[in-house]
Structures are given as structure tokens and as C-alpha cells.
């Protein structure tokens, strides 16, 4: 058996593409504002088989968010459906069914009722609908998780906008165009946490 999961850990199963950048930033910033810790497959160092490493990461997190809003044909030829996210969701469901006290998973979508068509086996699962907007992601994070000390949606959006406006500088500093690069993700996480601390100290009324 693997060690017990981190009770603050949230595995993010999201598409790694440029169009998803704003929602990715919203997930990371929003989770830090709820004092949870996001994890991405890109964090895992090389070596072992990728799928094994992803499974270990899922096992190490108490929660996971599976965003199926972009399970579609790739734009770049040859057009192929994007199976990574449903594959990782399937692995997670199996793990959670075998170990219900160790893991809780959530499905996120951009449109209501789309999940019933794309994955009818998940009927009975209520997806969180973010409408494809950062505000929707932050709103749904607040619907999925509750803490005694919760920031307001406005406070969360304020931090999100600041991080989003400075994101290109983070990419530049890390010498990459890839928002999901490990070094970029690490910097995004540390910045999100420090800004959360700041807004908590200086504007306690938003908490």
C-alpha cells in the first residue's frame, strides 16, 4: 500500500494546451486560496514509466479534479481524440472505489449535459460546470471545497488577474513558452501562495 495521501493535495487532470492557460492559472491560484496544494503530471521527474508515475501522484493526493471540457479532436493533424484525461479519470475512479477513504474525485466540464453525451457511464455524477471562464473555475472551487476561512470570489479574482497579467514574465524568466513546464508551475505555485498570504494579511475583509 502507498503511504496515506496528503490531505491538502489535489491532482489536476487538465489539458496541457495554450488555450487552457487562463483556466490553468485559475485552478492553481484558486486552490492555493483555499489552502489546498495542486499537483500536475509535469512535476514528476523522468525515469519510471510515465503512467506509473502519474498513478503514484494520484495516490499521493487526497483529491483530484478531472477537467473534461476539452476532450475533443486535436486541431493539429492527424486529428485524434484526446484520451489522456479520460484515461487518468478511469485510473482514479478505480483507485477511489478500492480505497474510498483515501481519495475523492471531481469531474469538471464547461457545458451542462455534455458529459452525459461524451461519457454516459458517468451518468449520476454531477460535474462542476465552469462555463470555460476563470471566474467559473473559482466559483466552482468554492462550491466543491469549504473551509472555515474562505476568501470571497472577488478576492480570488483579484489575485487571479494579477497573476494572469504577470504570467508572460514568468514564462520569459524560465526560458519557455510552455505554461505547464515544471519550473513555471513551481513559480506559479509559490507566487499564488505568497499573494494569498498578502491579501489575507492586508485585506482580511475578503476572507
Amino acid at each position, binding site marked *: 500500500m502507498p503511504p496515506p495521501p496528503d490531505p491538502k493535495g489535489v491532482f489536476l487532470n487538465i489539458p496541457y494546451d495554450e488555450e487552457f492557460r487562463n483556466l490553468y492559472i485559475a485552478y492553481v491560484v484558486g486552490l492555493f486560496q483555499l489552502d489546498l496544494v495542486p499537483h500536475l503530471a509535469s512535476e514528476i521527474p523522468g525515469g519510471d514509466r510515465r503512467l506509473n508515475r502519474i498513478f503514484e501522484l494520484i495516490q499521493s493526493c*487526497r483529491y483530484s479534479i478531472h477537467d473534461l471540457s476539452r476532450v475533443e479532436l486535436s486541431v493539429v493533424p492527424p486529428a485524434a481524440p484526446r484520451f489522456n484525461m479520460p484515461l487518468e479519470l478511469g485510473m482514479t475512479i478505480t483507485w477511489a472505489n478500492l480505497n474510498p477513504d483515501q481519495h*475523492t474525485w471531481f469531474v469538471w466540464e464547461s457545458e451542462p449535459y455534455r458529459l452525459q453525451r461524451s461519457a454516459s457511464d458517468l451518468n449520476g455524477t454531477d460535474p462542476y460546470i465552469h462555463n470555460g471562464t476563470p471566474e467559473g473555475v473559482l466559483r466552482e472551487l468554492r*462550491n466543491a*471545497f469549504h473551509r472555515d476561512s474562505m476568501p470571497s470570489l472577488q478576492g480570488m479574482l483579484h489575485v487571479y488577474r494579477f497573476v494572469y497579467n504577470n504570467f508572460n514574465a*514568468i514564462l520569459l524568466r524560465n526560458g519557455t513558452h510552455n505554461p505547464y513546464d515544471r519550473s513555471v508551475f513551481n*513559480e506559479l*505555485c509559490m*507566487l499564488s501562495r505568497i499573494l494569498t498570504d498578502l491579501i489575507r494579511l*492586508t485585506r482580511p475583509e475578503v476572507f
Partner: protein
Amino acid sequence: MRKPIYITAPRPTLEELKKQFPISKASERAIQALADEFKAQLSNREEAPVNSIKQEKRRKSASAA
């Protein structure tokens, strides 16, 4: 209606996060600069209503005179 998950786990400490998400010294300095800028933005937003109250008082006293 779904009930949200009630989180009781303690906040992750900064030290804990630094180990999980290691960044370079240059990135640390850049984040600090951004944090200072964010702090300045927050205090400007805080001061704005106070300044407008002061301006309103000045305007009223000037018109009374």
C-alpha cells in the same frame, strides 16, 4: 444538491511548499518584487476611499467658506 467537502487539514507552511516547489534565487527575487507590487496595489485600493472622504470634506468646507 452536492455538499462541498469540508477541509480541515492545516494550511501548508511556506517551508513545506518551498520543498515541494523548488525555485531559483532569481525567481525568488522576482516573486518578491511582484509581491511588493501587489501589496502597493492593495494599499492604493485601501487608501482610495479615505482620500475621497478627505476630498469631500475639503470640498464642503471650501463651499461653506
